[in-house]
């Protein structure tokens, strides 16, 4: 049959021009602007537009920035690993064990918490993990511990737990979609050819679900590295991340160019890591559209 999409590329361009113009003006241009800005300097309220590497030198030489950056990457990597690992069985359950007409309901159930006020959700984790919090009072009530645990709030761990919660649906959905695409007769074929259920899972299901897993990893990793609210509310001094420093530079220290440089560096590192990750997973993604 003739490809009907081919006709009317002019109308297509006309239709897309609105959203495209918006994305260019409000996204591409500002991103370019921040790149330019990162080469300028600011002295109190005066911006000096002479291009200089000074901000980047400072960002790479001052240990505090390096520490924040490394910690952000560590937190993001842990959050990604935990979120995706925890999410996979749930996605698998919904895709393989739930009756088809109930799947939409389950997916809806899983996504609801994601749509409810982020700030309040994060704040409630503070309540759950706090010294007199839900978790500690429950554990003491059950006689598991005598003293409230302190290693779960205002630190690295608290940030990881809270972010893993916040990004759960982001991980479940792409994996679910990938699992849904697997032709069920492939698994029957594997069993028919002598695989056990377990080996069929590892030899058929998992490889075919990999694009979803890779997508889930990226969609969790990239936004978490720039999270501001969680480290601020539950992170304490040891759990702060790069976004908090960017905010501080912009709104508190009046050093927007340095903040811009930190933002550019963060984005650069994330992009490189994402590309490397994709390259490593090329094998799984090849031949899948």
């Amino acid at each position, binding site marked *: 049959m003739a490809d009907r999409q081919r006709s*009317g590329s002019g109308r297509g361009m006309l*239709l897309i021009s609105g*959203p495209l113009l918006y994305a260019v003006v409000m996204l591409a241009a500002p991103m370019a602007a921040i790149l330019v800005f990162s080469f300028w300097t600011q002295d109190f309220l005066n911006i000096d537009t002479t291009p200089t590497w000074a901000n980047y030198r400072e960002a790479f030489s001052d240990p505090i920035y390096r520490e924040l950056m490394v910690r952000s990457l560590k937190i993001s990597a842990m959050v990604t690993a935990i979120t995706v690992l925890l999410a996979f069985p749930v996605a698998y359950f919904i895709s393989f064990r739930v009756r088809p007409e109930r799947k939409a309901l389950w997916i809806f159930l899983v996504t609801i918490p994601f749509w409810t006020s982020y700030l309040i959700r994060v704040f*409630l984790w503070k*309540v759950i993990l706090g010294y007199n919090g839900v978790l500690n*009072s429950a554990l003491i009530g059950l006689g598991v511990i005598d003293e409230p645990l302190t290693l779960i709030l205002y630190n690295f761990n608290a940030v990881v737990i809270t972010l893993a919660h916040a990004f759960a649906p982001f991980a479940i959905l792409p994996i679910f979609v990938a699992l849904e695409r697997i032709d069920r007769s492939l698994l029957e074929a594997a069993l028919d050819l002598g695989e056990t259920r377990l080996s069929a899972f590892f030899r058929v299901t998992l490889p075919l679900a990999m694009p979803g897993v890779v997508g889930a990893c990226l969609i969790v990793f*990239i936004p978490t590295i720039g999270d501001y609210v969680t480290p601020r509310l539950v992170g304490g001094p040891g759990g702060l991340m790069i976004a908090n420093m960017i905010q501080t530079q*912009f709104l508190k220290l009046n050093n927007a160019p340095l903040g811009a440089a930190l933002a550019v560096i963060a984005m650069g590192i994330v992009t490189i890591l994402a590309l490397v990750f994709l390259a490593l997973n090329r094998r799984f993604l090849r031949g899948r559209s």
Partner: protein
Amino acid sequence: MKGAGLRVYTALYLVFLYLPIVLLPIFAFNDSTVIAFPLGGFTTGWFAELAAVEALHAAVLTSVKIAVITALVSTLLGICAARAAARYRFPGKSGILGLIMLPLVLPEIIVAVSLLVVFLQIGLPLSALTVILGHVLICTPFAIAILNPAFQSLDVSLEEAAVDLGETAWGTFRLIVLPLVMPGVISSLLIAFTISMDEFIIAFFLSGSDATLPVYLWGQFRFPQRLPVVMALGSILVLLSVLLLVLAELARRRGARRRGALDTGGFL
């Protein structure tokens, strides 16, 4: 059985997901000023107190205004993009769509600071308007993601049939396209509204003196004695969010049924 193990695991996971939301009303009706266990007595006082706070009312009004405009604009942009993606082929299509969808994965702080830099440089004062500009940017990809299935599953030959039977282009859009994608449009409006109402970072950077509801909430976190009121407010917000989402989901399902499509998808 392996099936039973998975079921138990999934149930525990749902407990983990819903834990914070379940706690919210518990503390909202608890008469102790400290947000911790053990609980005190039952009260509805925190809800009553909400009615008395002027700043809160202003913030709610600002947020609703921003969210309504954001929902309308981003859904309109989403309709254009989803329609173009589903129906036409044009040069640079995947690149263009990639750019438009990019805010979906971009850390919001990056969007916030880059817009801040631009707005300050061109001298646009921070206000509800600048928040709307930022919110439209992040809501449009969600609108596209929701509208895409509606437009993708809209069979081209339905439109051709309408034209063949004598309708004009506008008549076809009004009588065929619009009714068939309407549930998706409603769903998109509701979701964009919800996202805008909840969004904090961009509003935090760009709202200037027009504090939105999340920005107001953020300010309240610093005052421990205000927290029970925040819990009450949060309960109401969660309730409203869930309500909007259920409506959006019902609209989406009705659309899928109407188009005769198999219904397995969620929002993304």
